[in-house]
């Protein structure tokens, strides 16, 4: 066992956990095939419904545990939008709360042993990020018309540097969906791969205790990262929404 891990490869590859495979049989994956991604996407949706709908069913004045967690999530996102995007941003509260609950549950369910992390795939985070990007761009043009382009023409800067700034602003605007999706997927891939690499070291007797402690430590860190990344995704959505609502600031 010990020699296996040193012979130019681990017994399992750290990236194997991200392979999309059909739930039933070993056939090819078509768009309608139920895969492990489908399963964990469904579980993510069910988990958020369970927390937000079933958890608050009691409507107790003194909330139980599920209700206080649901209220906390609701309050967090509500305050975040109000602080960053202002009162006008609250129109888009349902979408942003959905986004937050989806990402936080996808990240946390991915940490269940043997689970599949749906947010580790750029195909999924990319769709979320592109939805935010196109949504915000459409809101910006619908609310402000051509004044939305003021976002790229910084009036507070001297005239000579404005064209340079405009180029930088345009690039940073179009890199948003890329950075939003890759930040989430990259964090998830990196964290899970690191856990698997340490788990691979556990096969070598000499370093096994250190490896096991490292896995426990990384796991705790990953729980933190899962929540922080969902928070960051939501907060950046709010920042982009603010740019769309008040482009001249």
């Amino acid at each position, binding site marked *: 066992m010990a020699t296996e891990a040193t012979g130019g490869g681990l017994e399992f590859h750290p990236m194997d956990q991200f392979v999309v495979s059909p739930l039933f049989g070993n056939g090819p994956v078509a768009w309608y095939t139920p895969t492990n991604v489908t399963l964990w996407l469904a579980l993510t949706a069910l988990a958020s419904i369970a927390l937000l709908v079933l958890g608050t069913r009691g409507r107790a004045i003194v909330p139980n545990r599920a209700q206080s967690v649901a209220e906390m999530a609701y309050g967090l996102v509500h305050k*975040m939008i109000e*602080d960053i995007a202002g009162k006008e941003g609250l129109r888009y509260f349902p979408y942003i709360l959905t986004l937050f609950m989806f990402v936080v549950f996808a990240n946390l369910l991915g940490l269940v042993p043997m689970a599949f992390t749906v947010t580790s795939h750029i195909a999924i985070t990319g769709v979320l990020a592109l939805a935010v990007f196109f949504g915000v761009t459409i809101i910006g043009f619908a609310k402000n018309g051509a004044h939305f382009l003021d976002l790229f023409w910084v009036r507070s800067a001297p005239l000579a540097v404005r064209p340079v700034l405009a180029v930088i602003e345009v690039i940073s605007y179009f890199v948003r969906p890329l*950075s939003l999706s890759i*930040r989430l997927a*990259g964090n998830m*891939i*990196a964290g899970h791969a690191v856990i698997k690499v340490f788990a691979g070291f556990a096969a070598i007797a000499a370093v096994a205790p250190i490896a096991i402690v490292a896995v426990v430590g990384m796991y705790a860190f990953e729980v933190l990262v899962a929540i922080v990344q969902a*928070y960051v995704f939501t*907060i*950046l959505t709010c920042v982009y929404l603010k740019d769309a609502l008040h482009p001249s600031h």
Partner: protein
Amino acid sequence: MEGNIGELGQYIGVGLTAFGMGMAALGVGNVAGNFLAGALRNPSAAAGQTATLFIGMAFAEALGIFSFLVALLLMFAV
């Protein structure tokens, strides 16, 4: 010792992307350290700025994640 030179360059490139990770670590540490320095001078204003802290950290971290992406592309896509 056999193997082709392209693979050698690929692995060296993957190793070099670790510099990107280190630079991102410096950036994120800088954000957190400066936030703490400011927060200790004026603790009453700190609570209102945690959102800014996370935004700053996210931007600093994003470029480190890009270098990780380059490493993944070199390892699995090239």
